[in-house]
């Protein structure tokens, strides 16, 4: 093995020689510069390799073979090798990124750069606490010189602030080292951690360790002693910032990690405390930022807080495993993503995130940008996800719930500003801008991106050994993302084939609810994908995302443990967000969607963690059924998450925006399929956990009211919408409310009703949203009052909508009645009479929006501009009629569907339904769908035939041919009565839909932002203020840990 001392030798040697070499020309000096970086990378990589595969053990090296203190000693172990490789790799890529600038600045920049890398290597390698100080100084001096290299005001002041803060940190560090040395008589980090156990003067010892740690708290830029750091991130050259944020913090972090064993548990808890506080405070402050670099700065600081706290936790709880499963992935995630994003900001150079739409001019960069932002927000499969997951579970196993709360809330804040930024870049803006793409910079970013993906997949495989087959449903989506350049329709056909193939291969193997949900997802996705074949515009990602989302739904239904469930849940959230964001002007709405969804996901995660804390050995769903002690708490958390996804009353405010702003052929997927994911979650939860009943509250009863009121208020809101898609969105909310209500009954009949209603809603919303998509495709508007009389132009769409509304309103003889019938029978059987009343009210109010939908669009008088519209394309019509055929099948033979459902439900709850021929019988009543259909059909046909025979010569008149008040209106197209259709209803019952929830969430947002804004005002930009904070923080923390007695 190559002696790591060569790293120092090479970097230092090259650094000293460069002034000389530079005389030989820029090209040669640049070659030497890169050669030295490559060789140190090679050395560290070789070490890592032999640790990983060669069975290498940790080794100590001394300069000139002399023992310390006369020599410098380096310790290289597995962890050191990882950090060395990462830092040197990043150093090399950073040099590539900055190569243009380095070339311009000359050998001075190269020397400083090499010195910085040297300092970082030394920090990682040194086993001697005094040398730690020396390398810290080298790093700091080199870094703030590089920060000031640009000779711009911002970077110079940034460098100055860094120097002052760094100087203070050094003073603390040196004092700490002196005290510890005087007490233990050694400078070796390892021996010091042994000797401190024998020190008698505890007081002095804790003072010494406090000073030592506090210097690192400054170096790690912890809140509130970190104002200077934000200014540095903002002001310095992005190349340096990226490097400093990644490598600098990584190396400093690692040296802190090394000395953690020296200090007492008390001081470790202070690290955990400051780290968590920084994580949440910085992310909170980031919310009000508009400058991307400052956003990244806040995020950097926050991430370092989290990593530092997690590392202290691993030392504190003496769990080295956590270092590898959680601390390291969190750090690496930050390491690559943050560097990449800072570097991208060095190309785009926009100081306001709202102007970042220009990044779409470069497909490669915008793709990488998406990857990195998603990585930073902790989405799977990026390392941050695994780190957070493992950390949360480990904390749960130790009952550290408050910390889980802090981590998840901080993550939500971070996602808040990162995704807002992402949202801007996902859709092209009209703004044109010329961006100078330095090819070296782009190359460096691409390298980082590939490495990030490689690390992600490393962790992915590591965490999923033996479970890879679970991820099969994602292959189609990933493949389609890879085949992005194929023609659109070809990709569509591939998607259809893959769904069909998957269903054909795997559906027969499944049973129970898994089969039931999978059948719905697969059949639904197949039929709905037909409509997307109408797309003409090329899109590189549409089908990939669509299939990933479909895959995630299937995977959710297939999940066999909480980890798989949660991963697929997150992937579903992200892919659906990206799909919704594809719609025009969807920025605000999709943002609201993703924030609610993420909040819901975090609630689910914390609920899982709660349950896991009871049985920390398993990940299987059984832990939910075994969680006795905390089951109510876990149940509430998890079900809140599912309620958000189902847009239950109070957390529904995202639904109309998200549904209406998504592309028209995507909305059916969201409404018909995606909304069922929350239902599946409930099924999974209720099957394992049941509905806990505490001494004071019956959660089932509460859940039933949530469902009933969601149904009622959702429907009430739907009738006042002018936009067809918003109307249907609220209708979806109401319909899903029935399902929740039915599930909460927890009886055979109730669950039969829930499943029947779910299938019913799935089929109907497929029809209705597709029909509306066809109408919008032809007319270009979703505002119903702008249309009218389209029945003559679009008879097929009209008929589809007519069947849809008959089925959704619950009028016999179509399936909707079956759903309502089962629901009421189950509710009355249960004795929940008032809920029955509320559901009944909701279902009658549904007639209002049903009529409005069909009347305003298809009936009444047409508008002039739509006199020549054509029927919607067959791509839209065909899938609608496939669904309608299924609706008719289940209407005539409801037994077909109900038998399927009771086959699954009855073994669990016992049978609530018996059959006598075609008649379904419950304890209360009976219903025969077949005879109802026959009787109604016969009467209808007889009457129609009678009318036809009686008046064969009907004179057909065209539209506009009307008379009222004894005159023919001159402009009959203006007589279409559609706008504010139910105004009297609003006057009478408008109080029911006053925007309480909307106002509440607006207030929550407002308060959060206000706190964020007030908090960030502490960063005045004034160096003296920053120094004051550092000193005050030292006093406060000193008082807390050491005391003044």
């Amino acid at each position, binding site marked *: 093995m190559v002696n790591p001392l060569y790293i120092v030798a090479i970097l230092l040697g090259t650094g000293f020689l460069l002034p000389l070499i530079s005389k030989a020309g820029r090209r040669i000096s640049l070659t030497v510069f890169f050669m030295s970086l490559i060789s140190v990378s090679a050395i560290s990589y070789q070490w890592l390799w032999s640790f990983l595969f060669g069975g290498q053990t940790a080794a100590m090296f001394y300069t000139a073979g002399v023992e310390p203190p006369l020599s410098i000693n380096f310790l290289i172990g597995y962890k050191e090798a990882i950090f060395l490789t990462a830092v040197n790799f990043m150093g090399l890529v950073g040099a590539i990124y900055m190569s243009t600038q380095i070339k311009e600045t000359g050998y001075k920049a190269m020397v400083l750069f090499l010195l910085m890398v040297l300092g970082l290597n030394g920090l990682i390698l040194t086993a001697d606490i005094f040398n730690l100080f020396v390398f810290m100084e080298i790093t700091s001096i080199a870094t703030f010189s590089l920060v000031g290299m640009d000779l711009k005001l911002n970077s110079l002041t940034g460098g100055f602030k860094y120097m002052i803060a760094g100087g203070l940190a050094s003073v603390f560090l040196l004092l700490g080292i002196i005290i510890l040395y005087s007490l233990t008589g050694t400078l070796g980090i390892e021996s010091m951690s042994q000797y401190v156990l024998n020190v008698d003067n505890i007081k002095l010892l804790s003072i010494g360790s406090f000073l030592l740690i506090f210097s690192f708290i400054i170096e790690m830029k912890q809140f509130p002693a970190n104002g200077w750091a934000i200014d540095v991130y903002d002001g310095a050259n992005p190349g340096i910032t990226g490097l400093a944020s990644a490598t600098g913090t990584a190396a400093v972090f690692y040296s802190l990690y090394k000395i953690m064993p020296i200090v007492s548990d008390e001081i470790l808890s202070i690290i955990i405390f400051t780290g968590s506080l920084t994580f949440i405070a910085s992310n909170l402050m980031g919310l009000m930022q508009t400058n991307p670099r400052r956003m990244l700065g806040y995020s950097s600081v926050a991430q370092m807080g989290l990593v530092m706290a997690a590392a202290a936790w691993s030392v504190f709880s003496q769990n080295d495993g956590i270092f590898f499963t959680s601390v390291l992935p969190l750090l690496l995630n930050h390491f690559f993503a943050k560097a990449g994003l800072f570097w991208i900001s060095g190309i785009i150079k926009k100081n306001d995130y709202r102007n970042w739409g220009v990044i779409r001019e470069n497909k490669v960069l915008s793709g990488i940008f998406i990857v990195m932002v998603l990585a930073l927000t902790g989405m799977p499969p990026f390392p941050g996800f695994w780190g957070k997951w493992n950390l949360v579970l480990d904390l749960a196993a130790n009952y550290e719930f408050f910390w889980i709360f802090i981590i998840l809330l901080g993550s939500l804040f971070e996602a808040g500003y990162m995704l807002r930024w992402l949202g801007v870049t996902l859709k092209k803006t009209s703004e044109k801008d010329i961006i100078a793409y330095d090819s070296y910079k782009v190359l460096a970013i691409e390298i980082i991106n590939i490495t990030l993906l490689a690390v992600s997949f490393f962790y992915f495989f590591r965490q999923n050994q033996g479970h890879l087959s679970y991820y099969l449903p994602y292959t189609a989506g990933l493949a389609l993302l890879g085949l992005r350049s194929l023609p659109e329709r070809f990709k569509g056909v591939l998607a259809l084939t893959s769904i069909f193939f998957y269903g054909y291969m795997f559906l027969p193997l499944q049973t129970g609810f898994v089969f039931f949900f999978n059948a719905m997802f697969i059949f639904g996705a197949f039929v709905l994908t037909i409509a997307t074949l109408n797309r003409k515009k090329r899109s590189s990602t549409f089908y990939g995302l669509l299939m990933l989302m479909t895959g995630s739904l299937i995977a959710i239904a297939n999940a066999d443990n909480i980890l798989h469930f949660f991963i697929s849940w997150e992937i579903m959230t992200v892919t659906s967000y990206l799909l919704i964001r594809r719609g025009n002007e969807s920025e605000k709405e999709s943002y609201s969607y993703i924030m609610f969804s993420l909040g819901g996901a975090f609630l689910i995660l914390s609920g899982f963690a709660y349950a896991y804390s009871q049985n920390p050995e398993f990940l299987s769903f059984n832990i939910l059924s075994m969680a006795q002690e905390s089951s109510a708490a876990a149940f509430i958390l998890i079900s809140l998450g599912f309620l958000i996804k189902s847009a239950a009353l109070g957390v529904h405010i995202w639904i109309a925006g998200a549904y209406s702003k998504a592309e028209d052929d995507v909305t059916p997927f969201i409404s018909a399929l995606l909304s069922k994911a929350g239902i599946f979650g409930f099924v999974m939860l209720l099957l394992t956990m049941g509905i806990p009943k505490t001494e004071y509250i019956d959660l089932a009863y509460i859940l039933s009211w949530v469902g009933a009121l969601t149904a009622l208020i959702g429907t009430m809101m739907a009738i006042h919408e002018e936009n067809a898609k918003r109307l249907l969105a609220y209708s979806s909310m109401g319909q899903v409310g029935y399902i929740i209500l039915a599930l909460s009954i927890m009886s055979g009949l109730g669950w039969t009703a829930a499943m029947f209603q779910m299938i019913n809603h799935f089929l109907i919303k497929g029809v209705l949203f597709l029909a509306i998509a066809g109408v919008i495709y032809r007319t270009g508007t979703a505002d119903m009052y702008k249309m009218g009389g389209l029945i003559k132009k679009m*008879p097929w769409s009209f008929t589809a909508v007519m069947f849809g509304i008959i089925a959704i309103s619950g009028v*016999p003889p179509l399936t909707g009645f079956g759903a309502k019938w089962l629901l009421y029978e189950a509710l*009355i059987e249960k004795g929940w009479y008032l809920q029955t009343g509320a559901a009944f009210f909701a279902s009658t109010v549904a007639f*209002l929006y049903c*009529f409005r939908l069909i009347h305003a669009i298809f009936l009444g008088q047409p508008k002039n501009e739509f006199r020549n519209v054509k029927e919607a394309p067959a791509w839209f019509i065909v899938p609608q009629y496939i669904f309608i055929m299924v609706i008719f099948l289940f209407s005539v033979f409801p037994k077909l569907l109900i038998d399927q459902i009771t086959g699954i439900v009855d073994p669990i709850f016992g049978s609530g339904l018996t059959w006598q021929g075609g008649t379904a019988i419950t304890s209360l*009543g009976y219903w025969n769908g077949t005879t109802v259909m026959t009787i109604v059909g016969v*009467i209808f046909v007889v*009457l129609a035939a009678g009318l036809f025979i009686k008046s064969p010569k009907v004179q057909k008149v065209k539209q506009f041919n009307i008379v*009222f008040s004894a005159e023919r209106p001159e402009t009959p197209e203006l*007589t279409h009565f559609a706008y504010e259709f139910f105004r009297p209803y609003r006057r009478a019952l408008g109080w029911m839909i006053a925007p309480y929830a909307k106002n509440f969430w607006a207030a929550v947002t407002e308060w959060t932002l206000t706190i964020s804004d007030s908090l960030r005002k502490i960063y005045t930009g004034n160096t003296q203020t920053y120094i004051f904070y550092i000193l005050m923080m030292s006093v406060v923390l000193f008082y807390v840990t050491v005391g003044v007695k």
Partner: protein
Amino acid sequence: MDNFWTTLLYAFLSMFLIFNYGMLLGGVVYKIIARVHGRFGPPVWQPYVNLVKVMGVRTAISHGIMFWLGPVFRFAGGIGLFLFMPVVFGSVWMQNFSFSGDLLLVIYFIFFGQLGMALGAAESGHPYSPMGIMRGLAQVTVSEVPFALAVIALAAQHGTLSITEIVAAQQGGIANWNMITNPVATLAGMMAFLGMMMHAPFNLHLAPQEIPVGPPTEYHSNFLGYMQANRAFFASAKLILFMNLFFGGATNIPVLVGKTFTLYMFAVFVGVVNPRFTLENSIRWFIRIPTATGIIAVLLYTF
């Protein structure tokens, strides 16, 4: 199949009876309203005259297929509603097709004709048609609330949703009628009844005296004939429903006539002495006292 054909035969027979009963009832109501207004009024067979007249009109104008189908929907809804209900308790031949479904089917089937009619009338393109529909539908949604609560209370009381069983439970004298055993539910149901019978003060959507609004605006000739014939079925069917639910049902035809006639007169009498509510007024009225009564009726069985 023998069973089926007899059922069909009986159904036709009861349909014939109920049609004529409904027509005559309509005529009587014309007369009563006229007398209250101080007029002599048309003869009781006037509805027959009207029907023959409109069915005899030779011209027919259609605005399109839905317009054409609207009255068919409406009429099928009326007949269907009647056919899904047992009419005379204990009689073999007045059971209709009540084996197809219970009370919930009957309640929901009320909407079948209304929805179909609404679609047809809206296709006419006449602005007053949807205006009337909007008013009618909006009122139905709230008048159904106390009715539904009353029905739920009955279901809770008797543990069944089968109309036949509910009627059976009320046999054996007036003391067993739900009117006596469940007065709160009956009160709620009867208040809802006022809204469902479309007499004043809840007849804004018909507004027959001033401008014509609602479905009849553009309908005429055979279409109107269908709607008029339906009215006979629909009104009687609703009366029978209420009689079955709250007033002990009927064991023979004279009792049926007596009870339904009395019931109808309740709505008619309230109507003739009251002015007409605006839509907001009637919605507010239904959502307050009748709904509160319904909630009390339901709560009595919850606790």
